[in-house]
């Protein structure tokens, strides 16, 4: 082994390690943040409602979490009836709806975000993926909620 060959090995080793780390990074990202969740949400007069589907397991019920103004509010399983979702072809059955009641927010505008909860790494790791767009809503003194979002169609 000469030093010139050692330099070649050094370069080869660096390239191989770069490829390995890149492959792990991509694999980890796909495993932790899989691209098969989609859903949608809107502000209703009493809270936030919508649906969530896992394309990889269409009959599974997705666990969703609600955050308002960046703070965790509640979690639930999206298993309420939403026939419109199945009719529109977004899911294979209708049981993918969720409904969060909101009652204690101050008067003014707020931003709600719905996340799909995903477990990976043998349930040792949990990640959140935003479903649809953030939902802007306003609450008045009577506690009535008004949707301020401009997006009327479902989003991935």
């Amino acid at each position, binding site marked *: 082994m000469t030093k010139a060959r*050692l*330099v070649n090995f050094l370069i080869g*080793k660096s390239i191989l390690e770069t490829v390995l*780390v890149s492959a792990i990074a991509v694999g980890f990202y796909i495993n932790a943040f899989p691209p098969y969740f989609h859903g949608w949400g809107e502000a209703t007069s009493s809270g936030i409602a919508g649906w969530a589907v896992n394309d990889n397991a269409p009959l599974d019920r997705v666990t969703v979490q609600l955050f308002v103004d960046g703070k965790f509010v509640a979690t639930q399983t999206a298993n309420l009836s939403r026939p419109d979702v199945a009719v529109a072809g977004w899911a294979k059955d209708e049981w993918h709806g969720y409904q969060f009641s909101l009652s204690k927010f101050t008067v003014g505008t707020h931003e709600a975000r719905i996340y799909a909860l995903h477990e990976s*790494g043998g349930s040792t790791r949990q990640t959140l993926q935003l479903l649809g767009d953030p939902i802007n809503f306003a609450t008045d003194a009577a506690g009535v909620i008004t949707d301020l979002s401009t997006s009327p169609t479902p989003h991935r």
Partner: protein
Amino acid sequence: MSNQQLAATTTSRTLALAEIVSVALSCLIAEWVFLSFLSRYRWLVIVPLLLAVAFMVLSQSAYGESARDLGFRSDNLVQTLRLLIWPTLIAVIIIFVVGWYLTGPPSLPRLLRPRLLVVPAWALFQQYALQGFINRRAQVAFGKGVVSVLLVAVVFAVLHLPNPVLSILTLLGGLIWAAVYQREANLFALAASHTVASISLAIALPLNVINGLRVGFKYFG
């Protein structure tokens, strides 16, 4: 020094530093990437470690270094142990005093953990990489002395990040072991000192202080 000699020295120094960086990066990749992100396939950690070992062996072949040069020898074992006995003893006393102060005397179950049986082999491997390779390349780059000793200790400490207690202790241990290696190159004596210090740490200090000796991303969870 002629221009040619200067160029050769610079090339040797650059190569030696690149070798240190390469081996240290392999270890960091093992700690921070493979062990952390491959939960089911964590055994693949062997890949960067084997790459590092293969590189060190090839490098030692390129430099014409024998096992004896590296410190796998017995003729200077006693002299090296003499150099190490006091620093090791002082470190052990400090570790036990601090541990006793924090949690009381070490409990028997911690003394009898089977995992401690692999510490000597692991210590020898670490000293081989740290002194037999990194220290020798640091000497190629900077010669014997403070700079190369400091470089070895810093690399050793960086490999124990982000565990603050381990990083500080390995910085201190790295300074002593690197300095001793530059006087007497004997990896068995260094591994013995390393083993005694590691086992003392594992049994004397509370697990929450050393965070279970975790390093890399595993430190956080």
